[in-house]
């Protein structure tokens, strides 16, 4: 690049809001010159991921090597593996995920793609279902926003400013924002009602709200003891929820208890029993394409977020089983992801060759959202096209996986199916 370059409608993968309306101006040397509207996490993400473009294209045992040699080496290790595991599906595009699931199927791998939130949400959804909506419905209709145990102002900086602050087609501003959780936080500062509740008190709080909606006779002293708030406080909140024409409960990826999740989804469902009001739940997603991983696994395997192909067909996966090989996608992609517990045997990522710990086989890919195009899915189910904005000679994750798949012919698979 020789001059600054400006990209409009850039899709940012730094947080689960997956904003697609950013204007990005890049210095000739690479870093962000200007971001409009500005956003801290977006800048941080860009810097973290974009800087990885400098390492070698591939490495085996830490020694730089060619792409082809690394692929051969990876294939050899995969062939030898008896319990391979694939992680990091959220760090690649729908195209990459489709290839990754195909690979996992061919090699009989276990896919651990789930965040604790995804596991909790899908488990709860499988029990009670879920009432949800796209972000735009919140913008258009929501009059009551219940922020449940999260702080989108900090973690998803533009969620509220894009979809809640401005008036919508059927909703006037300001909308009523209620915060329940470990407050005060940046979001509670703007709430009309704010109930401070410790994490272990939230299930009791949800039970209390559900009981109030049913007008059940509950014990006020026990409410206070188990929820940390008075029955009056919860009654006030329940009344506000009851008044909602179109209410929204917002949670984020820290909601990871399937029991609490189920109670929350039951509350939303109960609020839909009112004849004159609707209620939906919105989960602010993780960075990247975690929702895409759920979708691809759903249509290719029938289960998400964890799937095992060990038996030659998809079955619901059990996380944290013993394995003898890990294929990791996109290690630096997610700002929040804890480093993998074990060293990856094969890592396919923009920073595969530069970020420790050093894997046996590292293959550097282009970076989705920077130097790679593809499709991603937002946590509300809307699919977005992501375009490469900085050209790169490196292959995409999907291309690398397809190359790998070619080195692992079908015939090698006999005998694993029952």
């Amino acid at each position, binding site marked *: 690049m020789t001059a600054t370059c400006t990209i409009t*409608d850039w*899709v940012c993968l730094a947080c689960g809001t997956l904003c*697609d*309306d950013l204007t990005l101006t890049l210095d000739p040397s690479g870093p962000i010159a200007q971001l409009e509207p500005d956003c801290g996490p977006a800048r941080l993400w860009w810097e973290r991921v974009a800087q990885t473009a400098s390492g070698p294209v591939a490495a085996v045992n830490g020694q730089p090597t060619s792409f082809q040699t690394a692929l051969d080496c990876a294939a050899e290790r995969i062939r030898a593996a008896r319990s391979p595991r694939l992680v990091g599906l959220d760090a690649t595009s*729908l195209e990459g995920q*489709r290839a990754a699931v195909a690979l996992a*199927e061919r090699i009989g791998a276990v896919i651990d793609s789930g965040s604790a939130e995804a596991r909790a949400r899908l488990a709860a*959804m*499988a*029990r*009670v*279902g*879920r*009432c*949800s*909506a*796209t*972000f*735009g*419905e919140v913008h*258009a*209709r929501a009059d009551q926003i219940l922020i449940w145990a999260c702080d989108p102002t900090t973690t998803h900086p533009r969620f509220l400013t*894009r979809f809640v602050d401005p008036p*919508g*087609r*059927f909703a006037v501003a300001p909308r009523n924002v209620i915060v329940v959780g470990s407050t005060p936080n940046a979001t509670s500062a703007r709430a009309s009602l704010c109930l401070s509740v410790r994490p272990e008190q939230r299930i009791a709080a949800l039970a209390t709200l559900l009981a109030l909606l049913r007008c059940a006779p509950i014990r006020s002293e026990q409410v206070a003891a188990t929820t940390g708030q008075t029955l009056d406080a919860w009654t006030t909140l329940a009344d506000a929820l009851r008044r909602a*024409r*179109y209410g929204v409960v917002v949670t984020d990826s820290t909601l990871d208890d399937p029991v609490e999740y189920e109670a929350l989804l039951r509350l939303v469902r109960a609020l*839909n029993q*009112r*004849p*004159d009001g*609707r209620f*939906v739940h919105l989960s602010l997603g993780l960075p990247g394409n975690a929702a895409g991983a*759920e*979708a*691809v696994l*759903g*249509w*290719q*395997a*029938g*289960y*998400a977020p964890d799937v095992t*192909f060990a*038996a*030659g*067909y*998809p*079955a*619901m996966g059990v996380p944290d089983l013993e394995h003898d090989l890990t294929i990791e996608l996109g290690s630096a992609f997610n700002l929040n992801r804890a480093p993998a517990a074990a060293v990856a045997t094969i890592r396919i990522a923009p920073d595969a060759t530069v970020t420790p710990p050093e894997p046996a086989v590292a293959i550097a890919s282009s970076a989705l959202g920077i130097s790679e195009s593809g*499709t991603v899915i937002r946590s509300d*189910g*809307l*699919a*977005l*096209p992501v375009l490469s904005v900085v050209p790169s000679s490196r292959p995409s994750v999907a291309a690398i996986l397809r190359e790998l798949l070619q080195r692992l012919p079908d*015939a090698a698979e*006999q005998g694993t*199916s029952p």
Partner: protein
Amino acid sequence: MSGRLWVIRGGRVIDPANGVDEVRDIWIDADRIVAPPADPESRPARLLDARGAVVMPGGIDVHCHIAGPKVNAARLMQPEISREAPPRPRRAGFRSGTGGVVPTSFTTGYRYAGLGYTFACDAAIAPLAARQAHHELADTPVIDKAFLILLGNDHFALERIGQGRASALRDYLAWMLGATRGYGVKVVNPGGIERWKQAQGTTSSLDDPVPGFDVTPRAILTEIARAVDELGLPHPVHIHGLNLGLPGNAASTLELMKALDGHRAHLAHIQFHSYAGDPSDQESMASGVEPLADYVNAHDHLSLDVGQILFGPTTSMTADSAVAEYLHRLTGRKWLSHDVELETGCGVVPIEYRHTQFIHALQWAIGLEWFLRVNDPWKLALSTDHPNGGSYLAYPRIIGWLMSRALRDEVWAALPAPARSRSALADLDREYTLAEIAIITRAAPARMLGLADRGHLGPGARADVTIYRDDPDRVRMFELPRWVIKSGQIVIDDSELRAAPDGLTLHNAPAHDDAIIPEIRDHFDRHASIRFAHFPLRSEEAP
């Protein structure tokens, strides 16, 4: 040319579109059916001996739900189905998958092919879900596909209809089809979903207002039908009407049929819209098919698919989120609901149809009444509204009931007496011929969808051919085709899947006046949560 030319020899060819029902050869060149070579001595590259077998065009499903976030949500909400149905292990050249009533995408393609079907039309994709749907359909092998986009509650469309701007509506539909790579236009509970999303109940009559929009269901239906006609789309507007599943809805269905006079229209899963009785009293339900069928018999602007139900567990999935909520309240089962901005809703509820249950028994009879009361089979297509009424895998059983009164009677006898007193099914003696089955499973759906080169075996047709053993057990015959040929390639041989080529996803992109685009862009900028630039599919996204 003759090097690739091959022949299906000596089968009984049933090709109603070309008026053929006789033993003859079918010649195939690459992916097309061709006229027999002029030289009687010309030797085919391959000869498929179909003597004694029945040769038909590949089956065509005009209405099913096999792609998009709604189907996927049904999978993820019901891991128990995937777990309990036998899985499909992978083998060389084929992908693995799970089964049940909402199988995985690969399994869906393989199973359609295994049933002798070569084309399926997903009837309800939200425009904002089109991008994902194309990915799923790309992973649905063997068969060719198309999908219809949901526009009956689309804000931009509703506004234009309210403003009386027919040409703007037309341009919007055309642009939308191009942007989503959709095949046709679907209207689900026009205006009713929007009203439900506003928590004002759904619409129950054609003239109920849609708050916030200066329209009624009647206006939405007729204007979209008009626009689709004027655009010359191959498939007429595809309609899921009002009051689905409610006793007494036959009256509004008749109103709807009359309102569409002068337009082409396809009425989907008509079984669910044909009930007499009082909406507030489930027990009052009765068949309301007869007057509706009389209307259809007397008019030529309508086509139908039936939406037959089967007894057993299945999954209800619909864009009509009001219906899903109703089902949830009725059954108490888990309920998925997802509101899609600007466009539509979506609801998924597990359901089990039981032959001992009055309503379900009646629904079964009402579906069959439709098949037997519409005189001209060209007006009607076989469907289960997969998976709403049951899986498409049940088509052979339905064919059995249509071809044999005795098979119907077996089921009928086991139904509860109150249900039998509310349907005249037992008075209907009609039995379908093989040619009529060929019409409702391939020739008619092809014609309804405007697929000129499908649903028949004349020269120029796509070489999608299904060859059945002429088995007196018609259910078994249609369950296990002897051969299935997709685009000239044998994909099923000896009832086994032998090849799984990728299928096409068809779409229509009619011309439109670009002047509409700034208006659409402005609409997006004000109301959508994604940028206008990210809405239309790029060409590489849906080849």
